[in-house]
């Protein structure tokens, strides 16, 4: 047994490390997607989320989620680290979607509450101690391998609440209802960030199998990583095709969102799909992103990085897909899980953000947005020596 303990500890540390690559992953992706005047601010937010969320989770959230630090299968420190690597992601999803207008201080307050309470409660009723066990709201039979609902939807529900309260960026939607396109400022960073996220996903989903120390589990982990990758591939390919058919051009910003959508969509069931299902699931995930981005813009829900489409719509789709593409999974259990988590995550986030907003307004005013959050919030320009074009 000792050898299993050792190998699973090593495996968890390996998986954890891959997930931590998502910290620069998110940071680079978002730094590339926003305008140069808001780059330092989003980077600062990303660093602060990692720092604050991880500490809050260590001090409060982890116990709340799992009831205890004990672990038989591997070092409890490794088990913690693996779980800790997740928590910031929920908040990254939220912060990315309100970037270019949300101030740092209230985001940090929200990070504390999300990492210490909201997310741990979601984990509690799904993967953790489950205080709802035995009640009508028990959703522990939902199959959600690595957080399609638990992480991606949770973060994106918080984002939806935040967008509703904070509103769109200055001049994003014209008086005449026209949508003003605000392009990404640094495409290499976008690509680097997306690819680091992609690699991190191997640890995210593979590590969520929880153990590699038996022949079956070794197969399961490898299959999970393969399926994860496949869905990302399919998401990228389908969106490339859609872009080419529409514009005769390959819009890389959308293609990468398609890949990420594919990756989210396979996250709930990567361990129990056969090797072909992820092609369909990921491709549908990609299509969802393309229509989702347009839809949210029509609804004037301003989301600079496309997080609502990538994480919310695909978080839902991916959780449902498990019931459609894997056997022995109850569609109802999946939907119930989506609903319970969704209602809880959205409502609690809405209330928290609403209240925080009274004390420490999230929204930078028009003048601050015009100047850029970098100077207002950080005092540090991202590229001070580079001449900006108009």
């Amino acid at each position, binding site marked *: 047994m000792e050898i299993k303990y050792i190998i699973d500890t090593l495996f968890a540390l390996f998986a954890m490390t891959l997930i931590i690559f998502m910290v620069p992953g998110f940071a680079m992706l978002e730094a590339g997607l926003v305008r140069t005047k808001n780059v330092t601010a989003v980077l600062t937010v990303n660093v602060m989320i990692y720092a604050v969320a991880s500490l809050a989770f260590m001090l409060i959230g982890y116990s709340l989620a799992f009831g205890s630090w004990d672990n038989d299968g591997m070092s409890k420190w490794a088990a913690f680290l693996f779980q800790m690597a997740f928590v910031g992601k929920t908040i990254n999803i939220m912060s990315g979607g309100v970037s270019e207008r949300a101030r740092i201080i209230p985001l940090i307050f929200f990070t504390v509450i999300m990492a210490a309470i909201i997310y741990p409660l979601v984990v509690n009723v799904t993967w953790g101690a489950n205080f709802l066990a035995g009640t009508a709201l028990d959703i522990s039979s939902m199959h959600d391998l690595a957080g399609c609902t638990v992480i991606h939807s949770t973060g994106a529900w918080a984002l939806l609440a935040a967008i509703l309260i904070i509103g769109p960026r200055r001049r994003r939607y014209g008086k005449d209802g026209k949508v003003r396109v605000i392009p990404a400022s640094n495409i290499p960073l976008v690509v680097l960030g997306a690819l680091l996220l992609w690699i991190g996903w191997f640890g995210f989903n593979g590590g969520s199998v929880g153990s590699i120390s038996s022949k079956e589990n070794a197969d399961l982990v490898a299959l999970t990583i393969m399926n994860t990758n496949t869905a990302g591939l399919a998401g990228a390919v389908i969106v490339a095709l859609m872009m080419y058919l529409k514009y005769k051009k390959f819009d890389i910003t959308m293609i990468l969102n398609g890949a990420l959508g594919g990756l989210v969509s396979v996250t709930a069931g990567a361990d129990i799909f056969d090797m072909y299902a992820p092609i369909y699931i990921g491709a549908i995930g990609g299509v969802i992103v393309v229509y989702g981005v347009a839809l949210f813009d029509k609804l004037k829900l301003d989301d600079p990085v496309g997080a609502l489409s990538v994480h919310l719509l695909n978080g839902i789709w991916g959780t449902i897909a498990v019931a459609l593409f894997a056997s022995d999974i109850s569609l109802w259990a999946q939907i119930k899980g989506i609903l319970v988590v969704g209602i809880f995550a959205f409502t609690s986030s809405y209330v928290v953000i609403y209240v925080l907003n009274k004390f420490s307004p999230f929204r930078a005013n028009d003048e601050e947005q*015009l*100047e850029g959050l970098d100077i207002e919030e950080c*005092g540090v320009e991202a590229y*001070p020596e580079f001449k900006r074009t*108009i």
Partner: protein
Amino acid sequence: MKKIEAIIKPFKLEDVKEALVEAGIEGMTVSEVKGYGRQQGHSELYRGAEYIVEFIPKVKIEIVVSSDEYANKAIEAIKENAKTGKIGDGKIFVSDISKTIRIRTDEEDEEAL
């Protein structure tokens, strides 16, 4: 012919450009410049130390027009649309141009504009 040079706040460019086009000005050349004047620069940070950025980003618009009439139209369009009323709105300078050529067609002066 007159040349109008306007130094304005960058975010006013779009409004000014639209007003100029409406006023019948069909061409212009713009560039990013830095201004120094009464408007104070802001302070920035680096590793815990503060410093002042004195030069402020501005946009310069250059328009050459064939007549005083157009010059006045252009000036009006700029004045109205670049104004915020706060320090740093910028300046308009007018000078003379003795000759204009459109490279594509070799047309000169009025015809080139």
